[in-house]
């Protein structure tokens, strides 16, 4: 399998190198996204095919093509007068001396010399670069056209905020599920998943197939499912660990700010929220909505310097919130506290939204909970830093949000908690896993802070540009990204991987795949899973 493909004939560090194919290598076997090694004089280079092109030695040949019905002529001309070239972007170098081998692959700073031999990367090469499955690395899929297991260092992955992108139906949800399982098994981090479409908790849907098992079914003991819609969860046969109810007095002005667009509030109306909050205190929402259209009410508005139309606008918005079935005047339990307790115990929490899939509910709840949890983390972390006690540090937390552009668009990113988390990164041990189909809608500052990005196929030029912004070798990655299959292929690049790689996510949904995911230790869990297959 490790035959020579061709030789390096030209190139530059910025633009990558041109490789002329040998006549024995068929150009049709070369696909963008495949990995190759280049044997330089002093070191080996590891790179990716980013373009494939055809060349002729003389333009006349293209104008007056030879008699191609004759196999003899075709065979003679192939690789001599007509030849294929591939464009390779060198990404990493593996030095020849002992220290370099110890250091492992390094980012590329030069190009291989003329006529260096180019070969397809072997399984060993990929393992050398990406590592093998161990206690930190998790098998996420196979590199395109290879059997090798591609492993991702999840310890490293959760240190930064990350993003999963791709247009709808390309497999984002399956990929996310795989990653969540990986984090659950291989990292110290706990996950809080805002599960808008009820895909991650109990069971997920599959296009043209039976539903697939999700986290709770596979890892009963380490996953808790909370729901906003108890009835719906019961309907679907989900065993939930808690119901989230939000008290009107728990909603704060900051929550309204992030909802400005969805509630269609004007700028003065948002300002007015702060004013009524100052005036009424904790019960501001209830009091504002109860404010009657009386002389007294008008007096109050005048006192607060709020215009009548602004107030009506605000009232309409707040009424929308009050109508949300999971908001109550006096909820029996404190959801934030319950979720935090689970997270502290190392249990991953999936919050299902049930039927409340509209964006208002999602933004409100995700924002509210995250802000409070984040505040807790922040104070604990500061305490731990102040007393220099590492054991006081809270467990790393990864918050998974869908439809991220609603939270992180340039207008609200500076105000919502997610913008803050994305920017401050791991300082307080909280990071984001952003899932979105429209990355161009996400604030570029937030995008630039994402450590590792995994992207499935996208067609929109702006989306592609925004995902690849800041990545080295953008133009090359773009050609790889644009040629991904519509399903089950993805490109990963950024902090947690030594170099970008296109891969096919591992199988998810069959009995064997569940068995592979099952934790090796702990016979009890294994037994639970055995039962699930039956």
């Amino acid at each position, binding site marked *: 399998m490790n035959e020579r493909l061709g030789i390096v004939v030209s190139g530059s560090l910025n633009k990558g190198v041109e490789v002329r194919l040998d006549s024995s290598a068929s150009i049709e076997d070369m696909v963008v996204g495949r990995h190759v090694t280049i044997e330089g004089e002093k070191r080996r280079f590891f790179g990716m095919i980013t373009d494939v092109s055809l060349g002729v030695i003389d333009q006349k040949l293209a104008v007056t093509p030879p008699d191609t019905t004759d196999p003899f002529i075709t065979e003679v001309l192939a690789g001599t*007068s007509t030849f294929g070239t591939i464009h390779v972007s060198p990404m990493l170098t593996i030095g020849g001396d002992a220290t370099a081998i110890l250091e492992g692959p390094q980012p590329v700073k030069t190009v291989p010399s003329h006529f260096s031999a180019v070969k397809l990367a072997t399984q060993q090469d990929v393992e050398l670069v990406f590592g093998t499955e161990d206690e930190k690395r998790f098998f996420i899929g196979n590199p395109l056209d290879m059997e090798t297991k591609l492993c991702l260092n999840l310890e490293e992955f959760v240190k930064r905020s990350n993003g999963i992108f791709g247009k709808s139906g390309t497999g984002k949800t399956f990929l996310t599920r795989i990653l969540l399982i990986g984090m659950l098994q291989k990292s110290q981090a706990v996950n809080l998943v805002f599960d808008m479409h009820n895909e991650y908790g109990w069971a997920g849907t599959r296009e043209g197939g039976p539903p697939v098992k999700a986290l709770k079914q596979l890892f009963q003991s380490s996953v808790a499912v909370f729901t906003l819609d108890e009835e719906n969860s019961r309907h679907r046969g989900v065993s939930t660990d808690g119901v989230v109810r939000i008290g009107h007095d728990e909603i704060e002005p900051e929550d309204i700010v992030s909802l400005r667009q969805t509630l269609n509030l004007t700028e003065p109306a948002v300002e007015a929220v702060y004013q009524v909050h100052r005036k009424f205190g904790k019960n501001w929402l209830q009091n504002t909505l109860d404010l009657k259209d009386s002389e007294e009410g008008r007096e109050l508005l005048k006192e607060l310097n709020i215009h009548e139309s602004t107030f009506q606008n605000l009232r309409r918005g707040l009424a929308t919130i009050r109508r949300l079935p999971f908001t109550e005047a006096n909820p029996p339990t404190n959801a934030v506290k319950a979720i935090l307790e689970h997270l502290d115990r190392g249990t991953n929490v999936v919050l299902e939204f049930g039927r409340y899939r509209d964006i208002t509910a999602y933004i409100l709840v995700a924002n509210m909970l995250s802000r409070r949890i984040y505040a807790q983390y922040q104070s604990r972390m500061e305490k731990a830093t102040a007393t220099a006690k590492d054991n006081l540090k809270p467990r790393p937390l990864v918050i998974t949000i869908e439809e991220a552009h609603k939270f992180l668009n340039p207008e609200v990113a500076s105000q919502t908690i997610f913008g803050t988390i994305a920017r401050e990164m791991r300082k307080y041990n909280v990071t984001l896993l952003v899932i979105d189909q429209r990355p161009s809608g996400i604030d570029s500052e937030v995008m630039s802070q994402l450590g590792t990005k995994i992207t499935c196929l996208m067609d929109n030029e702006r989306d592609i540009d925004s995902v690849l912004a800041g990545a080295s070798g953008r133009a090359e990655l773009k050609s790889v990204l644009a040629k991904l299959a519509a399903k089950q292929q993805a490109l990963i690049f950024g902090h947690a991987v030594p170099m970008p790689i296109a891969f096919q996510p591992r199988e998810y949904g069959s009995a064997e795949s569940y068995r592979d995911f099952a934790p090796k230790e702990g016979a009890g869990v294994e037994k639970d899973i055995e039962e699930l297959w039956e």
Partner: protein
Amino acid sequence: MAESQRVGEVIEASTTDFVAQCYELYQIPPLGSLVKTGDSAVELYAVVCNAATTSLEPGRRPIARGKDETSEEEIYRSSPQLMKLLKSEFGALVVGHKAGDKLYHHLPPQPAHIHSFVYQCTSAEVTEFGQSFDFLNILLNARLPVPAEELISASLRQMSQAHQDPRAFLVAAGKELAILLSGNLNQLKAILGRIRQ
């Protein structure tokens, strides 16, 4: 190894080529075939590039004799002196030499001697010589009485006979030519058209 067949004797020699006269009328080695001459120290390899049968005396042209004969053979039978009054000669282009055991695909330091015997190369010798296609360059650049594409194609066809897999040999030779003739596509096409199988 089969004994090399003696085909003639050198009667004119230069660094790049030599002319040999055949011992028997019309016993000319085929166009493009590999012949050798020289002594045991240096053997010259050459490709037959031209041949002619003429009158022994330059001033005397043969005359037509077959008016009353029924076939061509009859003419020679009724005038047996013809065989002695005519001569066959062939020109050969030197394409390499062998000094000791080593084969070189470039011109020898000395031209052939007059009266050296010329032998047709055996299959083994042809195969050995055909390991390298460097001789194609000499053929392409020589000033020849026949078109270069004719000679090259003839010589490759001849050589391919000696190989176990003639097609593979011709493809390899074709590839070499495609590189040498990258600037002259028409000539390449002409040669490929003549050697295709």
